[in-house]
């Protein structure tokens, strides 16, 4: 596969390590009432669609950026690649 890195252009899958569902960005609040349940679901019940899937890839043999890749799991077609840091900030993550 080729991942079209937003800063570097198309790079071979071999340079990357995949983590999985981008939902892992949304780490729950450790002090929430139901933190135990939230963390269980966060870690164990991940999106697994037959179709477009937002997933985290790490450009380990590249610029060390974490990316959010939107990829179709039926065709492997990649429709969007974003810097995970931008996505995380957009989803309200900060300090």
């Amino acid at each position, binding site marked *: 596969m080729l991942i079209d890195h937003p800063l570097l252009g198309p790079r071979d899958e071999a340079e990357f390590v995949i983590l999985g569902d981008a939902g892992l960005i949304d780490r729950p609040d450790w002090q929430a009432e139901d933190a135990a349940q939230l963390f269980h679901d966060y870690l164990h019940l991940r999106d697994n669609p037959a179709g477009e899937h937002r997933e985290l890839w790490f450009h380990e043999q590249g610029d060390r*950026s974490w990316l959010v890749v939107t990829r179709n799991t039926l065709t492997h077609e990649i429709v969007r690649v974003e810097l995970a840091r931008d996505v995380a900030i957009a989803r309200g993550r900060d300090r």
Partner: protein
Amino acid sequence: MAEFALTARTPLDGYDRTFGGVTLAEAAGLSLVSAAVPQGGDDAFAAALAEGFGASRPSTGEWVPGDRLGARILGMQPDQLFILFEAPDPDRAAEAVSAALGPAAYVTDQSDSWAMLRIAGRGVRAALERLCMLDLDDAAFPEGRVARTVMEHLAVIILRDGADGFLLMSPRSSARSFLHAVEQSVATVSG
């Protein structure tokens, strides 16, 4: 005078060899220091870089020359650059960059982290196409480009510094495996 003195040893022991049209030589005497840009400090960094090295900040994947100490500024990561230069005192390379950039960057000495190998000459790309997944065509990877990638299971930073010339950097501990891989490719395509 201390009782013991430490003599330095380079990762490739000064390797230098020519195969047909291709020359492989360890690039010695270069210091490498990483400079990370503090959050919100991009402007300060740009100013410091201009002041300290007479260079503008390259974008990730590019390198630009500075105007002193033979410096080359490599855009390695969105918030991290490498400065490749001839340090007046290699034992104080990080200090030298600190002095030049001040608080505008967090610096870390990387000089001993990488084996540096210059590969040049006709047939360079024929050799590299057996190793490197990247498109090294003049249009796709001209002079001024730099990339971190993987070759034969090894991390490699490849920097183009000539029509037929590249600087390759690979982790010091596996320098011999790296040299072997490059030698093999060059030997296979030459003669």
